[in-house]
């Protein structure tokens, strides 16, 4: 696909410079500023959620209870999950969407800039509430990020009310963000930017946005039901009042499964942007990639009960969900094959974004394999609620989603800041992360198979050696991310100047703009051939 910009560059329109200081950031409606805020917020939350993971791994370093009591441990696992899902991964992808989508489609900004500002600023508010709930009497939420009833309704303390409130706000933020993405892509593409010309990152975010619109309201509903069951005498999930605790799981996972695809589809878009650049070869099977992503999105609505195989479903239901879950492997596999085919007979170089992208392809696929194993219902009876599951979702979310976000950061930082990142630091970051993340999560497959359940603060002696190893991997991985913080900080401050093109093989409208791009870009739409 070849794209040519119009004659004028984006700096022909001169608005007054943005106000300086705090006011600029508080009132901004600029997609670049908002994108930056989302990304920095996500980075901060990544460290906070990561700190909780360090507490978890410190306690699990040895058998016995050394550092924290079980109730606090449960709060750590719960809030670690909530922060990583809703505070790190989702806002990071939204930040990337904000920065990149307008530039990639030749639009001057997002469709609804003021709503965009609100979408961001309610997030720090929501997370402050969640984090403050940890300091309440009796502690914060301790029922897992999945908050099953009746543990979350009858058997929880009042921090549940703050938890519900904060989840509602996060949901509103995501929904507003999704609406903005859809309206922007539908209505603001430059002339010539036809649907099947859009970069795959834009496609995957478009599909993700539809998933968000479909399921975030369902989360809002179920979290409201938890609130009313707890405080207002309803019995959605209480057998005594005619309800059913398993109903909670059905409604939650109807949201929950598409949610995990919401957390991976943008990653697929990022990898599909990076690999062609460094292979110097067009993405293989563009149309197929679009169809595969759509199939994954549609199928994601049909598999929710694979999280519930042990709840006592009848056989025909277990079979239905097993077959549908196995089926998702097909379009996912197709995507992996297409990336490999993109690399095949290319002329590759291995800059840091490409290194993270290759790591993604291998390690996400490993996560996919454990996912396929989990799909097999009879085998799942042995894996469910063990560390095998923990291994699976951390592979797809950390070496999957998080690595793709890091890859995206390295890929586009020169464009955003106008400076190249420090290559040496970045290489150290890559190798330390790659090794430590595998020391951290790979052994979890084994402890899970050996019988260690999840969400426990203490374990039987045979799990001790592996847990010690896993904890060391965890500490190392956490420390390695400080390197990333340093890389980002230094890059923003300065460094080798980046050209507009930045990467030799990069294609797309954003690479026509200067590095950094003007505060307002494509105020006149570019010509797209």
């Amino acid at each position: 696909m070849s794209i040519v910009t119009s004659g004028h560059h984006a700096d022909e329109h001169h608005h007054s410079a943005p106000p300086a200081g705090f006011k600029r950031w508080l009132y901004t409606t600029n997609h670049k500023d908002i994108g930056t805020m989302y990304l920095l917020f996500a980075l901060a939350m990544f460290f906070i959620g990561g700190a909780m993971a360090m507490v978890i791994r410190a306690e699990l370093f040895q058998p016995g209870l050394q550092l924290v009591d079980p109730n606090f441990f449960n709060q750590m696992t719960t809030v670690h999950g909530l922060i990583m899902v809703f505070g790190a991964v989702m806002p990071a992808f939204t930040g990337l969407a904000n920065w990149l989508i307008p530039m990639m489609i030749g639009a001057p900004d997002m469709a609804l800039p003021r709503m965009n500002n609100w979408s961001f600023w309610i997030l720090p508010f929501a997370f402050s509430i969640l984090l403050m709930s940890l300091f309440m009497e009796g502690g914060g939420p301790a029922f897992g990020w999945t908050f099953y009833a009746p543990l979350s309704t009858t058997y929880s303390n009042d921090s549940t009310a703050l938890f519900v409130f904060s989840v509602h706000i996060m949901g509103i933020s995501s929904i507003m963000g999704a609406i903005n993405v859809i309206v922007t892509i539908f209505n603001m593409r430059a002339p010539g930017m036809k649907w099947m010309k859009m970069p795959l990152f834009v496609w995957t975010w478009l599909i993700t946005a539809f998933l968000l619109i479909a399921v975030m309201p369902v989360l809002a509903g179920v979290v409201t039901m938890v609130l009313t069951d707890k405080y207002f005498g309803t019995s959605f999930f209480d057998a005594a009042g005619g309800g059913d605790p398993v109903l909670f799981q059905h409604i939650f996972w109807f949201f929950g499964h598409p949610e995990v695809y919401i957390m991976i589809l943008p990653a697929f878009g990022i990898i599909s942007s990076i690999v062609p650049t460094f292979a110097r070869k067009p993405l293989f099977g563009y149309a197929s990639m679009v169809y595969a992503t759509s199939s994954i999105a549609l199928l994601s609505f049909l598999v929710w009960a694979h999280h519930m195989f042990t709840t006592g479903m009848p056989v025909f239901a277990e079979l239905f969900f097993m077959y549908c879950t196995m089926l998702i492997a097909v379009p996912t596999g197709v995507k992996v094959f297409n990336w490999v085919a993109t690399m095949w007979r290319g002329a590759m170089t291995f800059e840091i974004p490409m290194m993270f992208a290759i790591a993604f392809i291998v390690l996400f696929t490993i996560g996919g394999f454990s996912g396929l194993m989990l799909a097999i219902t009879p085998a799942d009876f042995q894996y469910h609620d063990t560390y095998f599951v923990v291994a699976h979702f951390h592979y797809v979310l950390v070496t999957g989603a998080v690595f793709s976000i890091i890859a995206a950061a390295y890929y586009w930082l020169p464009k955003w800041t106008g400076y190249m990142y420090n290559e040496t630091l970045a290489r150290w970051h890559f190798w330390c992360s790659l090794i430590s993340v595998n020391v951290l999560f790979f052994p979890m497959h084994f402890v899970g198979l050996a019988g260690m359940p999840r969400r426990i603060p203490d374990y039987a002696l045979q799990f001790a050696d592996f847990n010690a190893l896993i904890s060391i991997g965890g500490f190392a991985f956490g420390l390695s991310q400080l390197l990333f913080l340093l890389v980002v900080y230094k890059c923003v401050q300065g460094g080798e100047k980046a050209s507009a093109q930045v990467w030799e093989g990069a294609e797309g409208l954003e690479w026509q703009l200067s590095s950094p791009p003007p505060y307002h870009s494509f105020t006149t739409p570019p010509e797209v051939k």
Partner: protein
Amino acid sequence: MASTNHRPLLIRLLFSVIVMFGFGFALVPLYDVFCEITGINGKTRNEVAGIERAVPDKQRTITVQFLARPDKGMPWVFEPEVTRLEVHPGQISLVHYQAQNPTGSAMVAQAVPSVSPGTAALYFNKMECFCFNQQRLDGGAALAMPLQFYVDPALPADIELITLAYTLYDVTQRDPIQPVTQTE
């Protein structure tokens, strides 16, 4: 470039959000309906069964197992009169559950049934059941609560044993659940 009007799309998307929020709540009755049709959660039909399907099939014998569990914190004594009964599908049987309130004050209880295997729940037809209504007992009083039922002759051939468990809850503080009335 002429600015596009975002409003129509925006309205459609907001409408979708509202619809999906409603859908989340609609899943509650949808689940009940789905369970009633397929019996997947082991809940028996909460309605009085008619008598027309009660044609005994002497070729087949089904064992029905009766369990009783007072909920934690429910001080009543709650036990089935018989723990097992051999019945023919279609044959009407009457059993009783004994309930006794050992405390000094009146209490109201609600029995909630659960059947295993779940799919058998659809075929467990109750003509009279103490679980249809709340049960009130004065302090110290006892009661033999009736359950009149038949196993539907259409019960799948591979089911030979049906376990019926009742959990007894203390609902003295709650709003009363509507008692079940006779179906047509």
